[in-house]
């Protein structure tokens, strides 16, 4: 009739627990033949004991909780009535019982379904129905937390590596940009390590082609889109005419719509509706002439004073066409417009994705806005572009304040 000891606890592995077995602890168990007085003695003797499983032969039939039991026994006459009766009077007759091979995830769902008691009293662990030990709610929470941490670590590692790939994809453009345009700025800040913003710079004999791209979405889906767009654009720049950005854009629209089945031929409802907002720029170096087409992306041209009488600096905003590239609602045959401009010496050109302009912040929690950006471009126009960029990003960070970053951010400028 003496309480028997369960098998020794399994060796705890250093790695994350996988099943109920890994949470198993041995504890005092009692047989249902024990009296309530015996249980009272056990609780008195073993101050650290919170629960006592009741096991009949090898079968767990209940769990006695110290607090519940002690409260009951402290009531008037309870000891007199129940002291010499079977200890099953005050046990929980339906404790959570799980097989050793139950995965932690499933165990946590069952513990939640069992309610509060599985977390406070713990649960009984069995092998083919036979009692082998107990598990505590604390250990279960700990295991679930470790499991989640492990899973998110694996996801993060995978995204970190995706970021290495995405950055490599940007590198040739950054290298060419630095070689062709010493006075430039390119800030690329994905919201979630990888993102849907992208930048392309290609050098040709008579000039260069620039694309600032904001694909739908951010994070991993956004990054998928940038790779699709970058490879399509790459192909178009090899075979098409970079000097006619509007035609490159129109061709790109057709290609995106057909490869993503957004051409209206596959109306099954479940497909994607993805595309990009973008500006494609051709700059002829000898003539200092710029031709660009833009889809929902404004250009900002900063001109220094033309004469002493004129204001010291002028910032002109030229909005893009209000049609994105590749989306379901964009017609297959949509034609974007080429804008033309001869860039005066000392003028600079800035293109940003909506990540800066739309970011809420400040005391009112409203968007950063184009006006604020233009004011900053005016204020810092005499600085090298990289210095302007860092001033603007500093102000942007201050403005954002406690607000979370809402979108990927790309800020590009050049002064040829």
């Amino acid at each position, binding site marked *: 009739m003496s309480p028997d000891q369960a098998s020794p606890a399994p060796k705890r592995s250093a790695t994350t627990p996988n099943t109920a077995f890994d949470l198993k602890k041995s504890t005092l168990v009692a047989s249902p033949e024990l009296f309530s007085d015996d249980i009272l003695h056990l609780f008195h003797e073993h101050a650290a004991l919170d629960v006592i499983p009741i096991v009949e032969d090898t079968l767990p039939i209940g769990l006695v909780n110290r607090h519940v039991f002690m409260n009951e026994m402290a009531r008037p006459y309870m000891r007199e009535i129940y002291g010499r009766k079977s200890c099953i009077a005050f046990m929980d007759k339906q404790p959570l019982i799980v097989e050793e091979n139950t995965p932690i995830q499933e165990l946590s769902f069952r513990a939640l379904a069992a309610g509060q008691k599985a977390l406070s009293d713990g649960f009984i662990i069995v092998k083919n129905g036979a009692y082998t030990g107990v598990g505590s709610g604390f250990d279960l929470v700990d295991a679930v937390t470790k499991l989640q941490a492990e899973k998110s670590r694996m996801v993060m590692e995978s995204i970190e590596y995706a970021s290495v790939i995405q950055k490599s994809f940007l590198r040739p453009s950054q290298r060419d940009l630095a070689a062709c345009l010493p006075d430039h700025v390119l800030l690329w800040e994905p919201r979630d390590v990888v993102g849907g913003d992208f930048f392309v710079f290609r050098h040709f004999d008579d000039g260069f082609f620039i694309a600032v791209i904001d694909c739908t979405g951010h994070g991993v889906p956004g990054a998928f889109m940038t790779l699709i767009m970058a490879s399509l654009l790459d192909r178009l720049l090899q075979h098409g005419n970079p000097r006619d950005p509007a035609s490159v854009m129109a061709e790109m629209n057709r290609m995106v719509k057909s490869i993503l089945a957004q051409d209206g031929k596959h109306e099954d409802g479940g497909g994607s509706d993805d595309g990009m907002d973008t500006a494609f720029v051709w700059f002829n170096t000898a003539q200092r002439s710029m031709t660009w087409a833009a889809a929902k992306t404004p250009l900002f041209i900063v001109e220094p004073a033309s004469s002493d009488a004129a204001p010291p600096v002028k910032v002109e905003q030229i909005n893009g066409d209000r049609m994105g590239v590749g989306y379901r609602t964009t017609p297959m045959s949509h034609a974007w417009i080429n804008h033309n401009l001869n860039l005066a010496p000392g003028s600079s050109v800035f293109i940003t994705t909506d990540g800066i302009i739309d970011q809420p912040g400040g005391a009112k929690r409203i*968007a950063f*806005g184009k006006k604020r950006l233009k004011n900053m471009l005016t204020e810092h126009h005499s600085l090298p572009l990289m210095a302007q960029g860092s001033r603007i990003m500093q102000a942007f960070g201050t403005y954002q304040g406690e607000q979370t970053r809402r979108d990927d951010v790309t800020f590009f400028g050049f002064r040829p």
Partner: protein
Amino acid sequence: MQDLYIDATNTSPEVDFRFNEHQLVLRGESYPENAAAFFGPITEALREYLEQSQDQTIEVIIELTYFNSSSTKVLFNIFDMLNTAAANNTINLHWRHDEDDDTILEFGEDLHEDFPAINYIPESFES
């Protein structure tokens, strides 16, 4: 028809569609991970309401401070539905924005241009 109310969250706006009072309110920010999933039931309810509306004056009050590009697409669909419904109804769009929020105001003006059948009423407020 059953009114539709959804509380605002960090990433989705408050939706207060009182179909019985012909007043539809969207307020807050909108950047749910899956805008199509969030707005699906909302546009569905709106479609049903507009189908049975005739010679009705409908007050639409929009006070959004941020919406991401996928929410923008959904908003355009909603305004497209309202624009169509404006053939048989009067749709008053109260486009509310902070007096300093030129981004939201600009978006409203684009909407006005695209959906001329809707009475566009910009309303700025101080905060």
